[in-house]
């Protein structure tokens, strides 16, 4: 018995030590399924084992500040710029974008399908006091939602507004259970398996644009971070191969992400 376990431990222990890099990514990126396409390709091309830590944007930034990861891939521009300005990251590199969509019960009691803008849609939900699930976890999606609420001028906080403090998938599960409205990113929504009575009701407002950016953690602050691997990964993420994989990633015939890597900003 002991011998069997000893063998198992040795095998498990030795298998994990290729060149590995820890990357904190948002739940929306991971739930979209794109990481399952990109990681094997990265491994194949650069021999880097990317270890994903799937967290909200807020926690991803915290992990980067503490030096617990080598790089982050998140989507909340203001927070990212503050992160780089404070010297935690070396630079912010835009990689790709998708968009946010408003999900709700298929019969759309608040009639947000007829709204002109995303802010109007939220105002209609507030007016109808229709149940709305908020991520409430300081993630990129949550920050986007809050900025849209501010733009709508509507007051929220009644019984109908439910911050759940959970990741994208868990929040979608809650919304499905309560037949509620929710703001989600398109990729997570399309890849979500428990749609129940929910449907995509509103999309297309430029305010719902969702830019993902890659930031290597500053080796000047944390000497142990694998800066060279982080740069190699950045080069790969901005390469033609990445462009091809990202642009061609589809679920049910719908393109999810659009590659738009530019020069470092």
């Amino acid at each position: 018995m002991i011998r069997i376990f000893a063998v198992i431990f040795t095998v498990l222990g030795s298998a994990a030590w290729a060149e590995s890099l820890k990357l904190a990514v948002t739940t929306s990126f991971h739930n979209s399924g794109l990481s399952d396409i990109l990681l094997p390709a990265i491994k194949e091309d650069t021999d880097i084992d990317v270890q994903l830590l799937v967290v909200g944007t807020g926690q991803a930034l915290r992990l980067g500040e503490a030096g617990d990861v080598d790089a982050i891939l998140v989507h909340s521009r203001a927070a990212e710029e503050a992160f780089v300005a404070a010297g935690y990251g070396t630079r912010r590199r835009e990689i790709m974008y998708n968009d946010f969509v408003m999900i709700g019960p298929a019969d759309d009691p608040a009639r947000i399908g007829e709204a002109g803008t995303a802010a109007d849609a939220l105002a209609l939900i507030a007016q109808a006091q229709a149940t709305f699930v908020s991520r409430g976890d300081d993630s990129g999606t949550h920050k986007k939602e809050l900025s849209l609420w501010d733009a709508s001028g509507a007051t929220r906080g009644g019984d109908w507004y439910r911050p759940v403090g959970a990741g994208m998938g868990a929040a979608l599960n809650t919304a499905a259970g309560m037949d509620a409205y929710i703001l989600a990113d398109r990729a997570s929504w399309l890849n979500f398996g428990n749609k129940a009575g929910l449907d995509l009701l509103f999309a297309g407002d430029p305010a719902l644009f969702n830019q993902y950016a890659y930031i290597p953690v500053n080796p000047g602050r944390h000497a142990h971070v694998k800066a060279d691997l982080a740069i190699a990964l950045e080069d790969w993420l901005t390469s033609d191969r990445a462009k091809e994989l990202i642009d061609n990633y589809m679920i049910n015939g719908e393109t999810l992400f659009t590659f738009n890597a530019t020069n470092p900003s």
Partner: protein
Amino acid sequence: MGEIWEGLSAGFWLVVTLDADLVEITLRSLQVTLSAVVIASVIGLPFGAFLAIRRFRHRRATIAVLNALMGLPPVVVGLVVYLLLSRSGPFGVLGLLFTPTAMIIAQVIIITPLIASIAHQAIRDIWAEYHDLLISLSTSKRQRIKTLLWDGRRALITASLAGFGRGIGEVGAIMIVGGNIDNATRVLTTAIALETGKGDFALALGLGFVLIALAIAVNLAIHTIGRTESEGKW
């Protein structure tokens, strides 16, 4: 109801086809929790015996605290271990965060009080029975602890199995300190949380049934081994 059947069949097929990912995360679950149980038993069993036979100031308080710690919230343990092991924390230089070692550390903290507490209850009963005999043979404290641990081994196995049960199903702490990294720190419970998040209830439930089956298998295995090595009754 339909989803429960889907879960059962998903779990069945995962096991029958020996799905490579399933085997890997199952072995890692076992690796983490069994390591934690072994370490926690090495600490907790003698400590429980010590508490049973040794009289000292604050003994009652120690036992009360130990019993209370049985209910230690895993999320809090996870958070504290996380802060200690973070690169910006006191043990950051070791680089242990988001490794199986960190998960083992968290689980040792969670299950040691449980094992020590159950061991203490068991040993106390045996000690009441053996007290006069062991004293009259003028045994040393060390010999007494050894005798009690050996003669109480079945109760102590139960203590360790209770620790195993708490560890194998635990998700709060290992999610925080392990990070649920694919191919590195993903275990059955964190994989279930992940699949639930994706809305893939069938797969999540399938993994859940595998987890339950695993717990039963380990318990059966331990009991079988326990019976074969005992020479008659104690």
